[in-house]
């Protein structure tokens, strides 16, 4: 060990203090804000605006560039719409070009307001939990969260190197508040592409606009394509749902994404109540998408669910189930091997976050006697198990 250290000291121009920062600084200059390499295989990814959804996407911790994420929703709720708004708002914050298809500009004005980076929200939550813990060395307790909340506080009183490094790295994912409205200078940069009914495919005009917007923009502009409630009859003309129109559109969209596979992502929602998954058309739409996620909200009246679904009293009860049918990149390669595949997921939408967590049923209620009876014994002794 000592041999190595001396070596470093001897070589000229290497400042020992700078070493920890070197990696961060090397990566920083060429990255665009909002884009980071996937921890899995290094391909560029961008955030969906929902941290737990990012984490669901097959180890890439974000939506890989050039991929289409399809979010399907059962019933008449609009959870998918909330996900879509987060996705659009994240694009606005990261100053990407956001193209919204089929909805009026009103939609853009109702994007959720920014709270801060998603990390900071998590820190605050963990902080709140820490409050009722025993305090040791209180003067150091805030050190850990320093970088993450540096923006929200006044003058930082500890200009450590760690802190500056954290501030340099821009936030990848942000947290939003559904009750507030997003105000950001680049919100006017959103493009709204109307759906025109025509004898030809109504998607033709949309595709042309997307194509010109993307190809004519500078090479380092990142685009997001947002398509809310695809094929919804209040937005789309009747002939849009003919397979030759919608499937050709998806195919061409896929082509567009693969031609610009470092600059574009897309998120599309489909109402499953109108277009069930058991139909061939929807299946082809799914086959043409890179990621497919289905939201199954619990029936609204299920108050019983509200008490029994949550694992503990502190946790919010899940509002529905989430199924992953296909994940980007992973399934393109053949599927498998991801720890997130095949799990049961539940989602909770609260004012400040859309959270996806493993779904688990609590122990059956009314069975308290049985539980108590088994409690004193605890785990069976080793001698009981051996035979």
């Amino acid at each position, binding site marked *: 060990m000592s041999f190595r250290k001396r070596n470093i000291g001897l070589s000229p121009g290497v400042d020992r203090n700078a070493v920890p920062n070197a990696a961060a600084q090397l990566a920083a200059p060429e990255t665009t804000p909002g884009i980071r390499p996937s921890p899995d295989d290094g391909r560029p990814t961008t955030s969906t605006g929902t941290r737990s959804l990012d984490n669901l996407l097959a180890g890439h911790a974000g939506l890989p560039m050039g991929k289409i994420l399809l979010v399907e929703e059962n019933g008449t709720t609009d959870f998918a719409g909330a996900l879509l708004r987060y996705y659009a708002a994240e694009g606005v914050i990261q100053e990407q070009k956001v193209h919204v298809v089929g909805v009026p500009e009103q939609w853009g004005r109702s994007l959720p307001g920014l709270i801060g980076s998603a990390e900071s929200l998590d820190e605050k939550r963990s902080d709140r939990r820490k409050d009722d813990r025993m305090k040791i060395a209180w003067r150091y307790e805030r050190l850990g969260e320093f970088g993450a909340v540096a923006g929200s506080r006044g003058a930082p009183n500890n200009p450590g190197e760690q802190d500056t490094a954290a501030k340099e790295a821009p936030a990848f994912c942000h947290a939003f508040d559904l009750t507030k409205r997003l105000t950001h200078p680049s919100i006017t940069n959103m493009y709204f592409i109307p759906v025109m009914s025509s004898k030809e495919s109504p998607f033709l005009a949309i595709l*042309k606009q997307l194509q*010109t917007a993307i*190809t004519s923009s500078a090479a380092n502009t990142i685009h997001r394509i947002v398509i809310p409630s695809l094929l919804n009859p209040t937005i789309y003309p009747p002939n849009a749902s003919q397979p030759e129109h919608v*499937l*050709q559109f998806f195919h061409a969209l896929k082509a567009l994404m693969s031609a610009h596979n*470092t600059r574009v992502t897309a998120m599309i929602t489909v109402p499953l109540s109108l277009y069930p998954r058991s139909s061939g058309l929807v299946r082809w739409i799914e086959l043409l998408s890179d990621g497919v996620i289905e939201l199954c909200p619990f029936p609204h009246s299920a108050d019983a669910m509200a008490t029994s679904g949550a694992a503990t009293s502190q946790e919010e009860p899940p509002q529905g189930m989430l199924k992953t049918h296909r994940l980007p990149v992973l399934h*393109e390669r*053949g599927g498998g*091997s991801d720890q997130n595949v*095949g799990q049961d997921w539940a989602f909770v939408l609260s004012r400040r976050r859309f959270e996806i967590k493993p779904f688990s049923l609590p122990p059956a209620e009314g069975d308290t006697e049985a539980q108590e009876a088994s409690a004193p014994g605890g785990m069976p002794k080793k001698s009981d198990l051996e035979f």
Partner: protein
Amino acid sequence: MPSQPPLPPLLAPYVSNLPDSSLTLVSSILGATSNWLVLRFLHAALSSPSPNAAFGSDELHNGTKKKVVLVSFMRSYEFWRTEAKRLGLDLARLADKQQFAFIDGLSELFYAPQPTATPSISPSGLGSSPRTTLPMRSPPGAVPGRSPQPAWPTVTGARGNAMPKQAEPGIAKKLHFSGRGLASLDALEKDISSVIEQQKSSMEDGDELLLIIDQPDLLLAATGPSMGIGATEMSEWITALQQHAHATVLTLATDAPLIHNASTSGGLATPIETEHAALVIGLAHRARSVMQLRTLDTGAAKDVSGVLRISRGGGLNASEESLEEREALYFIQRDGGVKVFGRGES
């Protein structure tokens, strides 16, 4: 994790040495895609048997030389190139050696981008391609190629022999769909067969050409009877293409809604479902073997990606050759390696 051989031993007899004029069907579903298996077909045909293939000794190997033409309707060349590289296949180099040709049925099949698009696509979209090729690229590609669509069949005919001036490195041809009905399919067939003939021109006696068509069913789904294309037309189209090749591999989607709706729900099935089912079932009857990929019936597992079932197709001449039917599990590792193993083994 120990690295797997590129071609799992259990799989090898089924993907290599396909007999003459045989049709192999690979069926996939949403959660169990077939790309990895297509790559194994590529590997079986293109990699040289000698272990040090990477050093260019593959000219020497005995037996027949194989060529592959891959037509992909769902994936870009970029995808196939990077995934093949993980198996040690350099598709770009093989394309230069005229052993491999890629026909792009994705990027411009239904909508060709506007001419203005071409200059700005390349620097970003093909980030890895050498910059020096760009100036050459736009004049032949953009000016004659992207002109009004009806002119396509004649234009492609003229461009067919101009392989060195191809638009993008590695892509032999980009397919364009125009018009409707049989005429449009004929134009596509002409495009594909011209590439095949091009490959054949450098073939010696005994060389074999493998044609792989990745998801031709998309063409049927995205056009359908309202555009004058049905299952019959599609399967005739495939027969016509089969005649140009030594052996043919097709990948098709066989998700339950696409296959079973046609028979169960009576009058409720839509044309997209009935035509798809008719096409797939018809082809399965003609195929020599059917390799079916599906997810585990019992839910997902951490060390199993899916189930591979290999069964005899209706077109197998049982008296002349035997094909062992079997069902195995497969697992795709993070590094792209594939394990194929029987149930209960690991």
